[in-house]
């Protein structure tokens, strides 16, 4: 019973961790804006946490470069499964305008598997919230399959 309670709460109240991976800040502040009164994702039970071991959803903004690729991989590995990864902004999806820059490897999916891609430069808070909701549908599917 406890297991099913955990599964329900993971979908109903996902804990989210944000990692800025070489973004220009545009997408970061839009992600942060989601937490503030006008958008307020906390009303859906979504909580922003700072510790990867507490997180169900990893929200990544920005491009991956030579240096932060390792950090990103570490954070992902520290999260308990099942986990979701959401790549935000053109940068997170493919590298965006920085695609050809010398230190840029490309999108987040070069390093870790990505579940939801959010387009936009920067992605709007509405789009980010929509992505989290879409992702949760996917998480629910995974949890049901593992029953």
């Amino acid at each position, binding site marked *: 019973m406890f297991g099913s309670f955990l599964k329900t709460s993971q979908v109903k109240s996902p804990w989210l961790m944000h990692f800025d991976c070489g*973004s*220009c*800040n545009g997408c970061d502040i839009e992600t942060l804006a989601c937490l*503030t009164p006008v958008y307020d994702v906390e009303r859906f039970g979504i909580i922003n946490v700072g510790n990867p071991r507490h997180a169900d959803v990893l929200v990544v903004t920005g491009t991956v470069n030579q240096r932060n690729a390792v950090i990103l991989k570490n954070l992902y590995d520290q999260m308990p499964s099942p986990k979701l990864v959401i790549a935000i902004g053109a940068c997170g999806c493919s590298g965006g305008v920085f695609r*050809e*820059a010398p230190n840029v490897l490309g999108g987040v999916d070069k390093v870790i598997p990505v579940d939801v891609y959010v387009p936009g430069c920067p992605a709007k808070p509405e789009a980010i919230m929509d992505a989290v909701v879409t992702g949760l549908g996917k998480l629910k599917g995974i949890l049901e399959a593992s029953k």
Partner: protein
Amino acid sequence: MARTVIPFGPQHPVLPEPIHLSLVLEDERVVEALPTLGYVHRGLEMLAVKRDYNQMIQIVERVCGICSMIHSLCYCQGIEEMMGIQAPRRARMLRVVWSELHRLHSHLLWLGLFADSFGFESLFMQLWKIRERIMDLNEATTGNRVIVSVNVVGGVRADLDESQVRWIKDTLVEVEASIRSLQSTIMNDSTVCKRTKGIGVLTRQAAYDLGAAGPMLRGSGVAQDMRQLKYAGFDELNFEPVVETAGDCWARSTVRFRESLQSIDLVRQALDKLEPGDLAVKAKGKPEGEVITRVEQPRGECLYYLKGNGTNNLERVRIRTPTFANIPPLAAILPGLDFADVPVVVLSIDPCISCTER
């Protein structure tokens, strides 16, 4: 007492951006702080050789999303100077409007994050709620919330009509009232003062010697603001740099608080001075030669060095950003602090890592 090394970052809840500090502690006291950078480095200055000088506007806007408009303003000014053209008056005034709106939203954002760094979460929420009004103004007038992309070489690409001007003015009246209603909390509240007054003091001489920029410098009593150079439309506006003398975290936050009210005033002045006219002049030829331009960003002085060689691509773009200038002063004030004050002091320089590393 044995020394302990505590890693701070690159992923840390108070900082939205990755920076790594190795804090060497003795008991609870910081004795040394060693910053490690490079997590956001993209190498975008090098893109100048791959993109032409018009496309570079989109790149430099993404040096930092928070002050994107001011980056492109600085870049466009440089190219205009190289090509020997000047943006029309209306365009210069509109540039002031959007750049001051950017400063306003950046300062509100910072004040919110700063409040969050000492655990005053409701103040953070209040400030970000006010900030959303500015984001709405940006979105309605330019089409995007954060990266507004209004500058082009020779002028601006968007215009304000009568009704928008009125709407901006009306919104700013409300925004000003709500900012003022938080004034006593930000400046006088005893819990806020306990965490900020007398903490992380940077003396006037040290600020000057270490090359601090922006509110960090003005918080230590040096009246230096690049808007005194009268770029864009600032030549026609009344403007005095905001200065505080205490040099501590409180002084830096007060400078930013007062500057946000000043920005509202500057937007109003610029809107009043708008006269019908062209939005842009046509740029002919290719940029050639070298220029250095400077503008004042929310975080301080930003310098662009541009070198053109008569082709479509610039030969070199060099950007010196304010946070980069503020890291040596930060490393100087961290030793001697309590560990619990580190997030507050780090935030008090308004770190913007993405522009530091580009």
